[in-house]
């Protein structure tokens, strides 16, 4: 039986940092796409392997994923997942083309998706690092690795993304996010997935923090 990776109290302490990351991400991707895009973190989830592999929809669906690693004070993966139509619309937005004008993943479209991940992921880490550094009075360095673009079965992609955590006996930890464009839901998924070693470090850091002030 998998153990909880982070207690409810520690999740509560982590929440302001992921919210700040989401706010920075929203600002950055809105500017990048020149459109009002928001990302909100609904919660930091903990689940079994089996439950987590449904996060990108049905396992045999073909999805695109842009993936970046994380280095520094927290290591692991970040993943931005979307289906073809959604991703190509994003590319059109960035390239200033009419919506639904593109139907094929060419070099430029893939580059647009990867750079979106770079901007979104970096901004998320900027916010997370700033919040944790301020609250702990310790320097935090959260740096991304270059993005990669993949198109494959949803379940296979998630398996690989969660593999490091899956090797431990704990429940998997990840962000559950929601995206909106002009106030309408976008079927994108952003996952922040700290790896098992980082969860240990994160636990120690969060334990030293006071509970956030109730809003």
């Amino acid at each position, binding site marked *: 039986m998998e153990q909880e990776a982070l207690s409810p109290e520690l999740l509560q302490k982590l929440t302001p940092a992921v919210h700040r990351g989401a706010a920075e991400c929203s600002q950055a991707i809105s500017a990048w796409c020149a459109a009002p895009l928001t990302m909100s973190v609904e919660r930091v989830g903990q689940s079994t392997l089996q439950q987590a592999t449904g996060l990108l929809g049905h396992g045999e669906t073909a999805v695109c994923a842009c993936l970046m690693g994380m280095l520094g004070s927290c290591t692991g993966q970040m993943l931005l997942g979307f289906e073809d139509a959604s991703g190509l619309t994003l590319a059109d937005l960035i390239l200033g083309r009419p919506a639904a004008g593109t139907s094929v993943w060419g070099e430029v479209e893939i580059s647009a998706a990867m750079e979106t991940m770079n901007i979104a992921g970096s901004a998320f880490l900027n916010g997370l690092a700033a919040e944790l550094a301020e609250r702990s009075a310790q320097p935090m360095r959260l740096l991304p690795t270059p993005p990669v673009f993949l198109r494959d079965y949803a379940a*296979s992609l998630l398996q690989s993304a969660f593999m490091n955590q899956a090797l431990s006996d704990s429940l998997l930890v990840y962000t559950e996010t929601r995206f909106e464009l002009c106030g309408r839901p976008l079927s994108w998924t952003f996952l922040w997935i700290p790896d098992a070693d980082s969860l240990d470090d994160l636990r120690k850091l969060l334990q030293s923090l006071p509970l956030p002030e109730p809003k």
Partner: protein
Amino acid sequence: MMPAVPNSDPSPIEKYNRRVGMGELDVMRGGGVLRTLLGSCIGLVLYDRLNVVGGLAHIVHPDSAGRTGPPGKYADTALAELLKLIEQKGGRQKNLTARYAGGSNMFGTTQLNQIGQLNTAAVARLLKAAGIPVLATDCGGGKGRQLSFEITSGDVTVEVLGGTPTSL
């Protein structure tokens, strides 16, 4: 993307076509199809053609090292559990053959490469120790795989996205 929601009451079709998730395993007798989706994990198929009993395990980790957890998660416990369930359903170890696939490195990282190779090596070693002949494998590379195992015929097919299903 809406998360997939499992049904609580499987229909006859769902009882016949079963999905084996990460760290799970299943055994069927007489008929049915077992399917799984693989990245760096290994899908291990054992089949007793004489008694038409077969099983599929989705292995995540090469070695339980004495840990408790879902038996399908670890190569050593997955094999032991498959053998037990196959015997329970009327299959015999002496009749078994094996096929397996997976162990890919989708993100090009050292760790994933390592775990894929360790999983593959562990499965090979355990099958050899158990005296179960390996008919075919399809491991490595950078793509996900969909594996389907049809019990009546014993056919195993592996498909990559956008590719043609191939027999294993």
